[in-house]
């Protein structure tokens, strides 16, 4: 454990020790919920009528809650895509696997490092079918191919090993390097950790159009290794008060050239209390197999009810076209039958099919295939018995 982690642990323990739990076993056993606990002392003095009072309080609370919900203006006009009637069917284009080791069709889970140390699946290379894992401590990287382990090398600061990804070459991986002002460059490494190249990405993490500093949120090499997509988010949210800010996507050529900002997800058209702006979030960069489109997930910090899966069309020499392929509905994340992600943070996963015609997206009840052309829900693949849900990351392996 580092000094900072120890400091954090001590801080959390100190704060936890200061908590003052409210002992109210009687109310629990009477089924009196927290919202009905107001004036509970008064109700207890009138114990003979407590049942009636609780009933009235519950009814009033329900009425007020419904009225409030109805009175709250819709914060996002985007309509969530819900296609509960779509039938499930087999995966016809390779196989889809999830980070928790399941897959459609069912089969052996992808190989993992044969090590006792915690490790996380960080990236997937669709061309080779290889998975990249990083140790939980962020000090070791493994590349596991379909048939054998291809790499195992140590990783150390200033490289941010936890963000290591495949590319640009078939025998290379890339990771950002940290610095006093956050990551300003990425290192291209061979599969033994040797540094082959350094690419300056400072243009992407400079201040945005509103003067807000940006920080790296994701990176992904195009399938041919010629372009690096870099995602950024506002480093400290939209501050100071009332400021606008944006999350951005930049493209850097491997061979140099002027970096291009190809997309900006500006603050949603929503002001909080008339003067405070929401903060956009952006993650999950993934190129289509033909390298012509870039998939990404966008959302916002305060009102993240409808995170969206976007596809950026990047025709050479022409303006970028951003297309919303799917709108998640996180407002009622427990509902059945809709395309609802299992988490309500911005951690929704998707994966391109090997031919680029479809995308797999996570949903609470499993995984759905949507059309890359227009986002139509085509097929569902249900989860597995005993699993609360199916969760990302996702990879779509080509047929062998």
């Amino acid at each position, binding site marked *: 454990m580092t000094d900072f982690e120890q400091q954090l642990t001590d801080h959390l323990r100190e704060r936890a020790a200061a908590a003052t*739990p409210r002992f109210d076993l009687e109310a629990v056993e009477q089924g009196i919920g927290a919202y009905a606990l107001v004036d509970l002392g008064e109700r207890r003095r009138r114990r003979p009528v407590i049942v009636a009072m609780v009933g009235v309080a519950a009814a009033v609370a329900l009425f007020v809650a419904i009225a409030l919900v109805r009175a709250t203006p819709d914060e996002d006009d985007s309509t969530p895509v819900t296609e509960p009637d779509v039938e499930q069917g087999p995966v016809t284009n390779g196989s889809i696997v999830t980070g928790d080791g399941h897959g459609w069709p069912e089969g052996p889970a992808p190989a993992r490092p044969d090590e006792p140390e915690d490790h996380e699946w960080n990236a997937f290379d669709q061309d080779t079918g290889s998975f990249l894992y990083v140790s939980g401590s962020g000090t070791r990287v493994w590349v596991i191919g379909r048939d054998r382990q291809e790499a195992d090398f140590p990783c150390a600061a200033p490289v941010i090993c936890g963000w290591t990804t495949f590319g640009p070459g078939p025998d290379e991986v890339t990771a950002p390097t940290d610095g006093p002002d956050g990551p300003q460059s990425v290192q291209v490494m061979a599969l033994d950790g040797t540094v082959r190249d350094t690419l300056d990405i400072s243009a992407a993490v400079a201040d945005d159009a509103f003067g807000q500093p940006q920080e790296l949120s994701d990176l992904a090499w195009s399938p041919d290794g010629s372009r690096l997509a870099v995602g950024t988010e506002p480093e400290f949210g939209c501050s100071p008060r009332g400021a606008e800010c944006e999350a951005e996507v930049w493209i850097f050529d491997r061979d140099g050239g002027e970096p291009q900002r190809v997309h900006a997800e500006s603050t949603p058209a929503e002001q909080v209390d008339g003067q405070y702006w929401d903060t956009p979030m952006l993650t999950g960069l993934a190129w289509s197999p033909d390298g012509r489109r870039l998939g990404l997930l966008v959302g916002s910090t305060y009102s993240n009810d409808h995170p969206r899966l976007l596809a950026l069309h990047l025709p050479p020499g022409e303006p970028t076209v951003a297309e919303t392929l799917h709108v998640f509905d996180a407002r009622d994340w427990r509902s059945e039958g809709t395309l609802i992600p299992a988490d309500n943070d911005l951690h929704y996963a998707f994966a391109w099919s090997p031919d680029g015609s479809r995308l797999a997206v996570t949903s609470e009840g499993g995984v759905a295939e949507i059309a890359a052309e227009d986002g139509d829900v085509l097929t569902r693949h249900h989860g597995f018995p005993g699993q609360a849900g199916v969760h990302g990351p996702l990879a779509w392996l080509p047929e062998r």
Partner: protein
Amino acid sequence: MVVEGVHSSEEQLDGAAFGDFYRLELDGQVRRAVLLLGSNDIASDVVHDAFIEVYRRWDTLGEPGPYLHVAVLNGCRGVHRQRSRQLRLLPRLTDRDPPSSVGEHLDDLLAELPFNQRAAVVLRFYAGLTTDEIARELGCAPGSVGPWINRALAKLRKALR
């Protein structure tokens, strides 16, 4: 490292009444919820409602402990979503002095983290859970946990420089 009261042993509950379970779990659950929500009152409400869910299913729950853990986490997640705007705006809406200590600064920074990042940090560094245990409690893939923690730590470190 396991923090007392956060993960109770099922053996301790064998044959015990709900009241014993409540007394055994209450403190740990509220402490953890406070770390996830930053408010003692809201945390107490969430834990209270989670206990009601457990009480209603007491006769059918084989392992009430894990059920309670998840119910509290889900309650915190729901509150975070519903109230994140107010919770996160509070420091901006009030003309308060800047944090006077590293601890206060850390509190502010933790409150700014997305829920899963904050929960992963609390479960790792307070509750001492492994990656797989955190993934089970948060209902996510083990592969998600490390990046959440790394990203949260990077953000905290950088802001505290």
